């Protein structure tokens, strides 16, 4: 555990306050850690991943002996020390060559981990095209039905979304939309199509990762033209591009996950705007007044009381034909009449 530091002056107090939990959080800062051995591919891959993540990235230049799946204590220490909540750990061994481990933290503790192997890596330099500006938010594109069904890929999607853009934006300038990161899978093997019926626990075993389809991560710059008033998108490969295969994983502790998914209470003005609990037919007009719209059912005109005339009264025969209930109603009407007359007077 780190010492609890007490601010001695205003500057350090501000720095400490910036680290305190916030209702709307900053983007995750990622630390790039090299383990005891990392190959040439992995070094370059991590460097370019970092260039995509900038400025919210910290690089550890020295080698470290960390094994995230065995001991997480150093990760937790670094996380609190650097106020970072994500790690990319690179490790290349004979058993698992070119492995990248994405680690997500919650409250200074490891939330979940996902290890991928880099099968193929193409650097940014190999594409002689325009690059995106560092610090711009990328669009994210995922393509496969497994991102909605398979637990491993749901985790991967959530992890990558968190990595490339966890910050909740209020608005975006369209000129700032420069690049897209596309995550696509190889065709789904037959075994996985009925994964839900087989039972998900079987799929999660380590040996089965060979059956999982490959992950292709590509980055493109977006060129926007308008033809016939309709926007037309052109993509140009920008690099880097990765071909990954899933390896080990560590799921989040359910209790911790529940804590991490807690949302702040919505503010009153947001609720009035219509966020949160859905309130139908309410809107705030330009003057700032809350306006509602009521919908009444269709009026039953057959029961409408029109002018009473002798000629319009049902004849004695018709009255006899009617049900008893109707008679009662008429009685009530007669009783009510004197009251209404009184009111008018």
């Amino acid at each position, binding site marked *: 555990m780190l010492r609890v530091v007490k601010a001695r002056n205003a500057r350090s107090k501000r720095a400490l306050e910036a680290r305190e*939990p916030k209702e709307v959080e900053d983007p995750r800062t990622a630390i790039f850690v090299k383990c005891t051995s990392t190959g040439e591919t992995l070094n370059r891959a991590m460097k370019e991943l970092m260039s995509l993540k900038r400025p919210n990235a910290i690089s550890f230049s020295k080698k470290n002996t960390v094994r995230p799946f065995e001991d997480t204590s150093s990760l937790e220490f670094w996380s609190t020390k650097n106020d970072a909540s994500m790690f990319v750990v690179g490790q290349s061994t004979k058993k698992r060559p070119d492995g990248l481990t994405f680690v997500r933290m*919650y409250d200074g503790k490891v939330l979940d981990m996902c290890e991928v192997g880099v099968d193929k890596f193409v650097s940014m330099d190999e594409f002689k095209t325009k690059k995106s500006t560092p610090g711009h938010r990328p669009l994210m594109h995922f393509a496969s*039905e497994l991102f909605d069904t398979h637990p491993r890929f749901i985790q991967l999607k959530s992890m990558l*979304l968190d990595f490339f853009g966890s910050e909740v*934006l209020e608005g*975006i*300038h369209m000129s700032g939309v420069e690049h897209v990161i*596309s995550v696509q899978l190889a065709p789904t093997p037959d075994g996985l199509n009925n994964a839900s019926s087989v039972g998900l626990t079987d799929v999660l075993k380590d040996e089965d990762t060979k059956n999982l389809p490959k992950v292709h991560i590509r980055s493109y710059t977006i060129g926007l033209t308008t033809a016939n008033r309709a926007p037309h998108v052109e993509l140009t490969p920008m690099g880097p591009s990765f071909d990954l295969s899933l390896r080990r994983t560590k799921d989040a502790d359910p209790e911790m996950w529940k804590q991490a998914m807690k949302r702040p209470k919505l503010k009153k003005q947001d609720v009035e705007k219509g966020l949160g609990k859905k309130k139908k037919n309410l809107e705030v007009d330009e003057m700032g007044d809350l306006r509602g719209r009521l919908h009444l059912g269709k009026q039953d005109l057959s029961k409408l009381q029109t002018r009473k005339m002798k000629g319009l009264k049902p004849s004695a025969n018709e009255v006899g034909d009617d049900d008893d209930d109707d008679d009662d109603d008429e009685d009530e009407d007669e009783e009510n009449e004197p009251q209404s007359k009184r009111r008018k007077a």
Partner: protein
Amino acid sequence: MDVSGILQEQAEKRNVTSSKQNLEIDVGCLAVTDSNPVDENDYSANLEDYLQSTAREGVQALITSLLSLPKQQTPDGPLSLLPAPTTQLPRQKPLPKPKPPTKWEKFAAAKGIQKTRREKKVWDEEKQDWVDRWGWKGKNKEKEEQWLSEVPANADVDHNPSQVARAERKKLIAKNERQRKGNEARAQANTSEQDKRKNEIEKTLASTRISTASMGKFDKKLEGEKKLRGIKRKFDPTERSVESEKKSALALISKIDGQPKKAKISPEGGTGDALNVRKAVRFASKGKGGVALAQGQTGKRQKGSKRSK
């Protein structure tokens, strides 16, 4: 030069509409998920082209929905206002805890007193200008700094009016500080039972670990046990005066024997109500206390009964 072929190709490219269904667009998160199955033939024929065309279709749909968002004019150009994201991502840190209310805040809430903002500037009649209420050349230092001040008739010889004013001001500051400390202590005491127990156990554990002759240096370590910080061995000097030795020994004995000092501020701040009962009784009995109050009531009744006789 025949460019018709190229033109046609371009036109075909343009005509490719995003006919794909099953596109799940999360505009707030700037993400799109395409849940169509992968076309195996295209995939194996030309991987890069296939990936790019799928990505293009997804991005096209996302951009279209981005362009249809409501806009706000800013100095840097139009800003598309994003809705809240539908994909929920885990937080990095727990939600911030609300600050514990101060004694005044509690009282104000019970009485329904609205908070009013106190302006920092006040109007100075003499200077005909707005001056700060406190701080540099503040209004509250007026009496200390004026060149002439009234002296009461019965004042001492060494009466210094500016010093008196300064002392008064400093007293207010001290009072505020005292109240702040009290609020802090009350907030500390109001932590949950579980936290209290945890702190207690941690304290006990720490004291047991250093309670051996070597202060835990040669003890067996448990797995996962953390190193204690800030432990220093401190030896008393071998030669001491009898007086100091006696004093320290007595202090130790009284520490063991006596009851621990009660905390000056009770955890709840009295009964925890906004109404201070003790104060109310003192007020009602005009400073004579609860017993006098009770006696006074019975006394009145007795007088009344006498009168009836």
